[in-house]
């Protein structure tokens, strides 16, 4: 194989792994949107705060890794429940812009609280994974990315099963489909709203551990959340499969674009390309590849 082709496949391979990890974070967004119709502009901040909590538990308090991750998970679940109760429930039935703004406000709070409570420095979040790249024929892959992609796939599959097969999952889909009918069927709608936010917390905690170990933990980690929007718009806002496909597309596109365009413009294509693609998607197919076709038109 020629070098240019190798380079291309390397970019694709990295894109796939990164894309799966984007999918994990996007899953948190999709879960909330699917169940509650609320839009979470603070998904990146969720990931950041979870990573900060885990790394603080690891380093400042010397907890073992499994305990730190458990603390992170528990903290994010409690946070999800509390958030739904205190902020989102009073906003039920209000215009969508109000919910968007509330989560933007929440994002600002988290960006302030994280460093205020746990310090501003960049922490690392060491996972017991070797750092030597794995060579697979002409490619090399970093183990962290492989593990991240694996965990993402596992969780995407688990949530897929949850929504299709489990009683709670089916109830949640019912809530998402029509709140009034779900209520009439005896489903405790508010409980499922809270559950959806707690699940978003779980996903964010895992995303925080994986992304934190890759990028280092500080406020900048929240910028990962900016990639959520292209992923969910491309894939469809309420589709778990869509989150995976959207994640893969965004991962591959940004890697390939960065690989070929960055040398000419001096960096930054990674942040630009997914959004350019997203604008295109909004023009052509705003409900995404797998989303419900219920977008409101005027």
């Amino acid at each position, binding site marked *: 194989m020629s070098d240019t082709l190798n380079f291309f496949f390397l970019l694709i391979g990295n894109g796939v792994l990164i894309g799966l990890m984007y999918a994990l974070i996007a899953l948190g967004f999709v879960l909330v949107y699917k169940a509650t119709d609320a839009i979470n502009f603070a998904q990146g901040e969720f990931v950041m705060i979870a990573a900060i909590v885990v790394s603080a538990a690891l380093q400042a308090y010397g907890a073992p890794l499994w305990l730190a991750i458990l603390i992170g998970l528990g903290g994010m679940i409690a946070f999800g429940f509390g958030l739904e109760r205190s902020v989102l429930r009073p906003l039920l039935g209000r215009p969508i812009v109000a919910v968007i703004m509330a989560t933007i406000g929440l994002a600002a709070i988290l960006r302030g609280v994280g460093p205020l409570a746990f310090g501003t420095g960049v922490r690392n979040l060491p996972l017991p994974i070797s750092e030597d790249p794995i060579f697979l024929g002409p490619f090399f892959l970093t183990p962290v990315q492989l593990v991240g992609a694996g965990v993402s796939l596992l969780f995407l599959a688990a949530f897929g099963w949850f929504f299709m097969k489990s009683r709670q999952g089916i109830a949640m889909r019912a809530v998402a489909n029509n709140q009034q009918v779900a209520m009439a069927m005896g489903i405790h709608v508010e409980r499922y709203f809270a559950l959806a936010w707690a699940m978003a917390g779980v996903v964010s905690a895992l995303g925080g551990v994986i992304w934190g170990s890759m990028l280092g933990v500080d406020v900048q980690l929240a910028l990962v959340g900016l990639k959520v929007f292209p992923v969910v718009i491309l894939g469809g806002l309420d589709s778990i499969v869509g989150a995976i496909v959207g994640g893969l597309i965004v991962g591959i596109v940004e890697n390939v674009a960065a690989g070929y365009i960055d040398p000419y413009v001096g960096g930054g294509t990674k942040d630009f390309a997914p*959004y350019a693609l997203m604008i295109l998607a*909004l*023009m052509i197919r705003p409900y995404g590849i797998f989303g419900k076709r219920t977008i409101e038109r005027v």
Partner: protein
Amino acid sequence: MFFRESGVFHTTYQRDMALYPMPITKFAVAAFAVLFVGVLPFSMHEYYVSIVNLVLIAVVGALGLNILVGYTGQISIGHGAFMSVGAYTAANLIVRLDMPFWVAVPAGGAMAALIGAVVGIPSLRIKGLYLAIATLAAQLIIEWTINHVPWISGGVQASIEVPRPRLFGYVLNSQRDLYFFLLAFATVAIVATLNLVRSRIGRAFIAIRDQDIAAEIIGINIFRYKLLAFAISSFYAGVTGVLYTYYLGIANYEQFQIVVSIDYLAMIIIGGLGSVLGSIFGAIFVTLLPIVIRLFMESFGSLLFDPKDVLNLIPMLRLILFGALIIVFLVLEPEGLDRLWRNIRNYFRVWPFSY
């Protein structure tokens, strides 16, 4: 003269839509004019004048965003970028072609209006969340473009130095000179907005916000008016960007990042959506908030925190307070400071009676 009318008894639509709803308003406006032109700038220290200048700039931007979000019901998370469009357009005109401010300010606004209208095109098909994300994309793409095209951004560090504005050969050097310069623009913006929202266009905006389908049925061309709202709103944003560039003496994209978009959204939510007075309240509140926090931390911060960290804590406290205020206002008082102000006024109007 503390007495007011006992109620609003307009008998014609003309009276109801008048710029001065009551005779006393004229006196109030005259009093404010005297205060802002004659008293305020000469009784304050230069530093405080510079803060008032920041408020005046923010008023223009908040009014613009409120036209879009508060009156037309469309959301934009890209206003920071529209400001940067205005700022760089003006900076290039000023530096390369030596244009005076009375060309640079409208040109910056017009360019931002053009870009804003282009960004607003998707609003024909999408709304709510999708529009929020589309404008977020616009913010990031415009930021990236300015940062990566040296022809726009002036090369090194994407910043262009801009000389102070000149009026008939007189350079507006001090903060006090700038104050009058900015006051003029803020006043024009306020009066223009007041007139806009009581005109045919403004009522069309409000109709679209309240019920877009009904608005279309009574003959409002939704697409045209949505684009118009984006264009007008972005024009204000562009002017804000130019004014800010004059204020700082430099056009730099870092002054117009997504944080700024969110600041302005916070202004109109805290101040009151769909209210001119609310925009002004919000601009004052949000601009003063970090300054008040800094003063507070400088005086009392060392009692609560480690003295070494006090200055580092200010930006975080600002973020937390900011977010908390947005949420508190959204949950408890969606109509913002404007509503609080009306409540207080109504209470005292009939005081000591209950009605």
